[in-house]
């Protein structure tokens, strides 16, 4: 920030030294950023306009991959649909559950630490293959979930093999991992000055009114943060869908998330150009969602100027 009018030679030397040091420290990150992120992104954009199977050089085919995606591939359309359902249903439910539990934990400090940790545990392991296997076993026919539901008179059979129930089983797995989001909400709740609640209470505001008028606006930056990262994270779920369907994306394609389908097309079928087109379509969708969120931010996210 030292943009003084006249630069003495010593200062220029100092500046050069700083620049050298800066790039030196940043070298590993820059190699990763350019070599493993930026250039690969550009290359995959190029590949999305080609036919490429890794053994022969890419062949330019223009927009054919994209045309095929949207007009001639029912599997992709279904994959996009179930991914969107999973993301747009699972993420809000997770957020609401996380907020409710955070409010519950915020009610009292004593003893809350234990529950905070206990509820957080699933977030740490929820994306693992182990948990996906557990889910598969628990939601299978003759698994404990089916056993419990039958005992109260609801006979659904196994969820894992049922096309209309396997997606709910995956959404329940996502909601089960509400803990990390809850911990962030709880930290946000603790930052809200108690005076605001006291003032609202003196004005005779009901609990619901206090929630609407104090909690939600004060928490809105945290809600925004959780919503954005939750949506983006949900698009990238892979292991649970893959394991629950044993890599098939079934039953009836109902676990064929975009990640799973991309993996199958790109790496099992060797259609890397086509898979790259899928990846870029997804990137555009994610970018649009992020853009909408950032645009609507002004109308509902309340930044209290000096929080950090």
């Amino acid at each position, binding site marked *: 920030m030292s943009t003084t009018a006249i630069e003495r030679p010593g200062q220029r030397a100092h500046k050069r030294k700083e620049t050298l040091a800066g790039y030196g420290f940043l070298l590993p990150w820059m190699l990763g950023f350019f070599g493993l992120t930026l250039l690969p992104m550009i290359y995959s954009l190029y590949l999305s306009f080609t036919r490429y199977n890794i053994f022969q050089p890419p062949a330019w085919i223009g927009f054919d991959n994209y045309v095929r995606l949207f007009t001639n591939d029912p599997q992709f359309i279904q994959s996009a649909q179930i991914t969107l359902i999973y993301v747009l249903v699972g993420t809000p439910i997770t957020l609401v559950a996380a907020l409710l539990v955070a409010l519950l934990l915020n009610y009292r400090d004593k003893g809350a630490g234990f529950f905070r940790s206990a509820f*957080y545990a699933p*977030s740490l*392991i929820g994306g693992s293959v*182990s948990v996906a*296997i557990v889910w598969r076993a628990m939601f299978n026919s003759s698994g404990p979930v*089916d056993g419990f539901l039958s005992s109260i008179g609801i006979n659904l059979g196994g969820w894992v093999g049922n096309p209309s129930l396997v997606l709910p089983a995956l959404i329940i797995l996502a909601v089960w991992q509400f803990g990390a989001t809850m911990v962030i909400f709880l930290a946000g709740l603790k930052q809200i000055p108690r005076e605001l609640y006291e003032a609202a209470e003196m004005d005779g505001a009901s609990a619901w009114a206090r929630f609407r008028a104090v909690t939600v606006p004060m928490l809105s930056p945290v809600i925004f943060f959780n919503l954005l990262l939750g949506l983006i994270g949900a698009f990238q779920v892979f*292991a649970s869908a893959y394991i629950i369907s044993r890599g098939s994306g079934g039953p009836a394609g109902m676990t064929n998330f975009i990640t799973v389908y991309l993996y199958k097309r790109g790496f099992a079928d060797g259609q890397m150009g086509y898979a790259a087109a899928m990846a870029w379509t997804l990137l555009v969708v994610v970018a649009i969602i992020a853009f909408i969120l950032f645009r609507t931010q002004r109308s509902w996210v309340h930044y209290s100027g000096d929080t950090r």
Partner: protein
Amino acid sequence: MTSSTDSQVLDTAITPGISAPPKRRVKRKTWQTALWLLVLLVLTAVVLYPLVWLFVSTFKPNSEFGSNPGLLPESPTIANYLKVAEGIGGVPMWRFFLNSFILASLAVVGTLFSASLAAYAFARIQFRGVAIFFTAMIGTLLLPFHVVIIPQYILFNNLGMVDTFWPLVLPKFLATEAFFVFLLVQFVRQMPRELDEAARIDGAGHARIFWSVILPLIKPALITCAIFAFIWSWNDFLGPLLYLTSPENYPLPIALRLYNDQTSTSDYGATVTASFVALVPVLIFFIVFQRFLVDGVATQGLKG
């Protein structure tokens, strides 16, 4: 680091002037607290049930997996553990553990090395381009991995690195996990600059300041990063699925996939037990370091 102290500071900063009823603790009725506790206990039971079920099921003989929907095994056995110890696909279980452990340890070393260097540059050195790079780094936080896996695969394939640990380890040494860089930047920025200045007056350059002033100060954040780097690597499925092809190179998640994909559905016991065994190190980490983990999430917004 802990947000609770932050809020206390904030509270005491605001309250003292006002008539300050010092202990305006709301007197809660006992039954309210009891209800609160009850609701949370029930919720805990529901949330932790899958883990309890997993643990108990490892003692169920295979035959009970279709026939006994109850929690407890009718005739408990450790046969599943003996079976799992033998491994799968001709590779013993310890080998998968070792591979997972090597990968996770290298992930920790690589992440700490590259993320701390980058964080120091972003937080403490003013040079041309730093703002653009910082924005780019934040951008990669939001980038879905899909757009890079195919070119990365082609790259590592051309380098002859498929079926080695390189494609899984090298990115960690190049700080591709932006979350860690971001977390450390936030942390370094909180450190008082006076310490840097004092060291600089004593003639220390950036290397010295980084090594003997900043690194010791940010130790708690480094520990948080290390734990998360370890667990994320331990749980990673897609990376090893893409790059590792010979069973003796498999880490645990890919070995679990072998159990899961067995066409003979008879071996439920071994599958479930292997899943549990693979989770044990993470659960131990969680129990030992839960404060670091939960506070890391609370203050930095790191997800699990």
